[in-house]
């Protein structure tokens, strides 16, 4: 299975031929009933994951974390600390898995690369005038190229929500295609900022739009708005990648980001993955958590499982 596909290399070539065909296609996708979707997400949230299953889920979740710092106050020092944490999340237990990646702004990519060198931990960078995305395309592309040139393995782009909400889907599509091209070998995560798209119908449309344009991952949020990843919007995106693969053979990853802070939350998301997209997605190549504080909670729960005692914040690192 190819990890990426050039846009228009699949069954939907006609769909992206014009603004109107794209619009017709996206609006022809099945609707989403809000109450039913949320009820399903809540029902899966009642799964009881204990003992061996919990241990498996915690390690899997740690391995799926894109350990993130996206602050104006970020410094190389802060990023180095983050990188060290990604490589050895639990200083007291070297059996803890590494995280999938660290996620930083483009100007911090070089520092991050250095911090994780040789560990297998990837460096992801938010680009395209993150988080608002309100810049000209060439500025966004320059942002992407900078990050890639500095060694980013993955690019987390934001879509133009304004264009999307105005119904200019082809503009959004073209921009993703352009960013994908500029990303080169780096895997592209496309952030929809689901909280701003507002409706589940929009989230389903955006998911298909992103996948048609060649996204390697679809990602909920920037973490910078009021509502970020939720079980329901992630469930919906998992349905989208599932259906997309069924129709095209192309597998796309999913990354919920923002607001996932506890082990309990993370395990619920893994249950969503397991019972919606299936086990093919239970791997950090196909599912990620965009998070920062989540990691420490996962580690404390991991310690609890190992020792039988509840852990505390003094037994994990504050970075």
């Amino acid at each position, binding site marked *: 299975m190819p990890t990426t596909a050039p846009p228009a290399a699949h069954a939907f070539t006609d769909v992206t031929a014009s603004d109107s065909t794209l619009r017709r296609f996206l609006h022809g996708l*099945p609707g989403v009933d809000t*109450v039913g*979707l949320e009820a399903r997400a809540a029902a899966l949230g009642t799964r009881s994951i204990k003992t061996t299953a919990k241990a498996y889920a915690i390690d899997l979740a740690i391995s799926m974390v894109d350990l993130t710092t996206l602050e104006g106050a970020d410094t190389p020092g802060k990023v180095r600390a983050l990188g060290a944490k990604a490589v050895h999340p639990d200083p007291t237990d070297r059996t803890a898995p590494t995280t999938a990646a660290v996620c930083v702004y483009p100007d911090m990519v070089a520092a991050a690369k250095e911090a994780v060198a040789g560990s297998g931990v990837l460096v992801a960078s938010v680009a395209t005038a993150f988080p608002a995305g309100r810049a000209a395309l060439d500025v966004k592309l320059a942002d992407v190229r900078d990050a890639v040139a500095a060694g980013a393995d993955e690019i987390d782009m934001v879509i133009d929500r304004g264009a999307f909400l105005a119904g200019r889907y082809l503009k959004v599509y073209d921009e993703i295609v352009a960013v994908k091209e500029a990303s080169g070998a780096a895997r592209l995560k496309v952030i929809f900022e689901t909280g701003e798209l507002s409706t589940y119908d929009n989230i389903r449309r955006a998911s298909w739009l992103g996948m048609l344009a060649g996204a390697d991952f679809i990602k909920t949020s920037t973490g910078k708005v009021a509502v970020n990843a939720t079980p329901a919007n992630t469930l919906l995106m998992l349905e989208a990648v599932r259906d997309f693969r069924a129709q095209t053979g192309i597998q796309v990853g999913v990354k919920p980001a923002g607001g996932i802070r506890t082990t309990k939350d993370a395990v619920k998301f893994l249950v969503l993955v397991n019972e919606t997209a299936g086990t093919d997605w239970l791997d950090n*190549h196909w599912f990620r958590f965009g998070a920062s504080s989540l990691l420490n909670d996962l580690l404390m729960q991991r310690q609890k499982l190992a020792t039988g005692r509840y852990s505390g914040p003094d037994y994990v690192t504050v970075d």
Partner: protein
Amino acid sequence: MASEMVSAKASAFAYAPAPESRSVVDIAPSYGLFIDGEFTEAADGKVFKTVSPSTEEVLSEVARAGEADVDRAVGAARRAFGKWSALPGSERAKYLFRIARIIQERSRELAVLETLDNGKPIKETRDADLPLVAAHFFYYAGWADKLDHAGFGKDVRPLGVAGQVIPWNFPLLMLAWKIAPALATGNTVVLKPAETTPLSALFFADICRQAGLPKGVVNILPGYGDAGAALVAHPDVNKVAFTGSTAVGKAIARQVAGTDKKVTLELGGKGANIVFDDAPIDQAVEGVVTGIFFNQGQVCCAGSRLLVQESIHDELLDSLKRRLSALRLGDPLDKNTDIGAINSAEQLARISSLVEQGEAEGAERWSPSCELPSSGYWFAPTLFTNVTQAHTVARDEIFGPVLSVLTFRTPDEAVAKANNSQYGLSAGIWTEKGSRILAVASKLRAGVVWSNTFNKFDPTSPFGGYKESGYGREGGRHGLEAYLDV
């Protein structure tokens, strides 16, 4: 990447057993009848065993009521009626509020008990049955002192002694549906739980005791059909309420002919779940699954007929099969179990026989690969495709986890097929087009219509059927009428 995917698959996310603790419930080795506030043996000393359908383990030995016991219980209810009905409504209300609160306090215990005796998943008893039971008592408690405002005139009066016979599929919830409105309106009660699920009603007797309910107001008679028939026939019973099979419902209707007994019947169904091509498809799949596999399909209002628009038949069936493959069947006490045990060997035999008939008539049978436990009563979730209106599995109530899939081409045809049944209890509509929901809902001959949802229940929402699904409504303001002399 392929190797990574394989390795991910190999370490699949296997949920470890997560059993709810059985120790929260203490089941005595034997139980009596609950008459006039006391537990007592049956007059003829008969007993029967109640087993856990998931393991066939005997849970307890229970006194089996006979005609003499019915007479005794009705006598107790009659004696209690005068004082109980004369209480100010506000006082009756407080008893019901007490009962509601005690149910909430003991809900975990009752959920485990119900799961043990019935075989349904703890997820359902915990998240559906018990919350609804408590809510039902809360709802009707509030009516007790407001009956003059319920739209049935001033100074409405209770009927007297209510004889109530309930089924095994939602033992405690059906008890709540029967007892809460009866007591709120000032009637006294003799209730017969089903012979396969007597325990939660007997625990309810203890809750009545804890609540200080006056003796004789609620009497519980575990027993078989003969006790139910004796209760219905008893000349001093003023009101008969029955939930169960249509065949028994008809027998009751004949039995009370020529008397002045008031009757409500909640009987069988063959609910149509209609999925249009513009449905919210993922939610529709969930609704179809909930519609027929909730409580192993042992639900009178189950959506046991899937009517799918021909243009999306294949797509929907693929999704449905994929979804069914994710259902988890097994230990009902495990919190992750979706499908529990069939309630009894008799019911399992009935389901099996109807399914065999479906196959013999040429319908195509499909089940996900799923391992059934070696002891207990189990039936895998089952789909029938290539079903027409003429197939037995499209007409008869199976009362099990068996879905018959039929197709239609136009809304008119969908409605015609949905209504083409002697039953008329429930129906579902799945479409994103609002006007179509309203148009189809108004044409369906069914007492409960769920649009873009299914199997939702609420104490404020009247429930009951058209045609051979019975008469009368339970729940809501409408549910009061069955227990008032109006």
